[in-house]
């Protein structure tokens, strides 16, 4: 079992958990957290290189490193793992954000040990989710990733934290309920009449036994189930409150990685397994996601709390992810995955910076702040860079992702899809409006509050966190073809063949 | 066709069961209720005798009437001031109880009457189970013998003794 590289993505966090449990003081905790997440980052980068090597050597299977260990044979539940380019990209993203999140919560208070325990448990779920190809284990890890969120927000959060934690958890659990129904439905239709049922994604895809009628029922279930986590309109309202109350690292992980679970799941389960229904029902969800792209952006324009602004911008950007996935062609889907990467990194950067600013000024209300550029130039410049990434400046990640999505979506010959593409395009202008509004109010202009003049700039761990993220954002923005190819290669042509598109 | 004496016996037994049951649950003084319960239990014992189960009737009198009711009386005397402890029933509760009782009566009665033909079985001939038979049934492990439940009951009683001591002990 331990000969498979993927299993270490779960094993290392578990070892970290054990190590954390033994820690006595904050120094040891930091050491364990940083060493562990560095190990995970190294592992994911190694996986990336090795994966590309295997692909270059001509491996054509849809998933590599596949393995399966029986777990509960009566119900055909296995611990099945395997990755393709998308999962690899997601693993790299998750490990980077975990690493920077550890740095960002360097001085977490109170109960640092418990905080990191829950945080690592959460990331265990995340990593487990991305390596699983068995629907049941996938769902299990999904839940493992969701539950710690409640405590992390409820205990270490700020503001109206109990309400937010409860709301977030309940809404996501509501999504899970749909999801579970959908997954069980898929399981019972996973094989043709009389065949052996399975939870394995690849097997189900190969069997292609879910008939159209059932797909019409199961597709919305799974899509909405995952869509709730992907902040799909109108199930996005947990996001502003949840993010506003969450501590920095949790916001980072949640917006950066957990929301990606939603998009990834929508693609991996809903669309991959039920392409016909996806094709027939896409228009409903296209309307919803297309609306949420513009709607989130408009909402962000009038918010005054930094985290709310960012949460609504996440609604807009994640809406674009689901929007592109539903276009059902390679280019748009590549764009969707790139947008997931890009949004993950830049939102993490945003939340890290907001946390750092909040830690100093003790307010997140942009009306109470101003002229921070003069006081904390490093953080301010980083914020501007994050903003530029968000509004799609070439050379940073947002641009390539959005352009890939727009070009891919416009490829769709149907007038309806095109009109919605143009509607989604409008978001780039609105995004510019709210980003510049924040930058102008928060960072530029005269200093608003005299007390802020005494504040200090970033510490070394904060610099480490932000610089790592900025480099990642710029890497995607400057060398998009590398990532595009990593992702693109793995879109199995057969799902598009079913729909009759390229 | 039963003898007249038997019928009169039956009537007395049935009547006292019904009357004393009703009195048990309606009397407002708790000590009286216990007394009426005693009469009900005696009537039941009489019923067992009439159905030719002498041993059972004896056990009923000894354990129930002699043991349990005495326990009740002790408990009542310990927990309340006799004669003084009349309780008023809440009318809402009484209504609820009445509905429940009547509903039970109706449902069970309907079930009973709908199987009227079976319920009309007349008394077959039966020899009294002798003490020897009962003792063998109780002490054997074969078919129709009850050593295991007997032992289980004895263990249960032991547990009850210990439990009762523990619970009632002064701290």
């Amino acid at each position, binding site marked *: 079992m331990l000969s498979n590289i993927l299993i270490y993505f779960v094993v290392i966090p578990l070892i970290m958990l054990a190590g954390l449990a033994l820690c006595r003081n904050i120094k040891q905790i930091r050491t364990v957290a940083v060493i562990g997440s560095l190990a995970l980052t190294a592992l994911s980068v190694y996986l990336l290189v090795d994966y590309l090597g295997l692909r270059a050597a001509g491996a054509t299977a849809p998933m590599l490193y596949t393995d399966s260990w029986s777990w509960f044979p009566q119900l055909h539940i296995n611990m099945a793992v395997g990755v393709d380019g998308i999962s690899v990209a997601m693993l790299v993203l998750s490990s980077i954000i975990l690493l920077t999140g550890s740095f960002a919560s360097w001085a977490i208070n109170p109960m640092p040990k418990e905080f990191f325990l829950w945080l690592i448990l959460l990331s265990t779920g995340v990593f487990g989710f991305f390596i699983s190809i068995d629907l049941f284990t996938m769902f299990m890890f999904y839940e493992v990733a969701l539950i710690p969120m409640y405590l992390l927000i409820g205990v270490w959060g700020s503001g109206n934290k109990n309400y937010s934690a409860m709301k977030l958890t309940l809404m996501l659990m509501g999504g899970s309920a749909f999801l579970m129904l959908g997954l069980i439905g898929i399981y019972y239709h996973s094989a043709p009449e009389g065949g052996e049922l399975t939870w394995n994604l690849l097997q189900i895809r190969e069997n292609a036994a879910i008939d159209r009628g059932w797909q019409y029922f199961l597709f919305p279930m799974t899509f909405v189930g995952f869509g709730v986590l992907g902040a799909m309109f109108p199930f996005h309202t947990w996001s502003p409150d949840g993010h506003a109350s969450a501590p920095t690292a949790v916001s980072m992980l949640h917006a950066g990685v957990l929301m990606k679970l939603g998009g990834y799941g929508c693609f991996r389960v809903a669309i991959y397994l039920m392409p016909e229904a996806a094709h027939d029902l896409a228009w409903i969800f296209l309307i919803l996601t297309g609306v949420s792209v513009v709607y989130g952006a408009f909402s962000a324009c009038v918010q005054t709390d930094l985290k709310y602004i960012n949460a609504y911008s996440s609604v807009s950007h994640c809406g674009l992810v689901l929007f592109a996935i539903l276009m059902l062609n390679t280019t748009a889907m590549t764009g969707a995955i790139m947008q997931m990467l890009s949004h993950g990194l830049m939102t993490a950067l945003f939340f890290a910076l907001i946390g750092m600013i909040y830690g100093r000024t003790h307010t997140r209300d942009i009306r109470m702040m101003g002229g921070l550029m003069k006081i904390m130039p490093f953080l301010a410049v980083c914020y501007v860079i994050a903003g530029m990434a968000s509004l799609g400046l070439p050379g940073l990640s947002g641009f390539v992702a959005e352009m890939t999505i727009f070009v891919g979506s416009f490829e769709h010959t149907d007038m309806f899809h095109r009109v919605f593409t143009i509607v989604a395009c409008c978001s780039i202008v609105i995004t510019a409006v709210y980003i510049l509004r924040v930058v102008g109010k928060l960072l530029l202009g005269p200093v608003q509050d005299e007390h802020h003049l005494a504040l200090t700039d970033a510490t070394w761990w904060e610099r480490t966190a932000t610089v790592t993220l900025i480099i990642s954002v710029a890497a995607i923005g400057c060398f998009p073809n590398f990532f595009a190819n990593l992702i693109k290669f793995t879109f199995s042509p057969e799902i598009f063949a079913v729909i009759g598109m390229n | 066709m039963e003898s007249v004496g038997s019928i009169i016996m039956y009537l007395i037994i049935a009547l006292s069961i019904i009357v004393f*049951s009703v009195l048990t649950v309606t009397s407002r003084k708790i000590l009286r209720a216990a007394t009426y319960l005693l009469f009900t239990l005696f009537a*039941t014992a009489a019923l067992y005798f009439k*159905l030719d189960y002498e041993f059972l009737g004896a*056990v009923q009198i000894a354990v129930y009437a002699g043991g349990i009711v005495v326990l009740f009386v002790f408990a009542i005397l310990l927990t309340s001031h006799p004669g003084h402890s009349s309780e008023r029933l809440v009318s809402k509760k009484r209504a609820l109880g009445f509905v429940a*009782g009547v509903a*039970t009566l109706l449902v069970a009665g309907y079930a009973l009457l709908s199987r009227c033909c079976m319920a009309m079985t007349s008394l077959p001939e039966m020899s009294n189970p002798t003490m020897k038979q009962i003792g063998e049934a109780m002490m054997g492990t074969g078919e129709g013998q009850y050593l295991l439940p007997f032992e289980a009951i004895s263990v*249960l009683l032991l547990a009850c003794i210990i439990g009762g001591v523990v619970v009632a002990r002064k701290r």
Partner: protein
Amino acid sequence: MDITMIYYLVPALIMFCCGVYGFITRRNMIAMLISLELMLNAVDINFVVFNRYLFPGQMEGMFFTLFAIAIAAAETAISIAIIINVYRSVKNVKVDDLTEMKN
């Protein structure tokens, strides 16, 4: 007149209903326990009657009643021990007033 099975079952049923009524209406725990005994007794009668009328050669019903009586005795003993204990601590045996353990 033949005394058939139903002649025994009906008083037993009435006894049972009285038990139900008493259990629901009484506030005194001892009175509730008394009602419980009535119900048990009614069931015992049924066992005996069915045994006697339908399976006269066997003794299952009788033995069941026998054991039920034993268990009833044990149960009563324990219950009364609890009741006395409760009385000792709260000076009351009214079931409505015993809400201390709830909170």
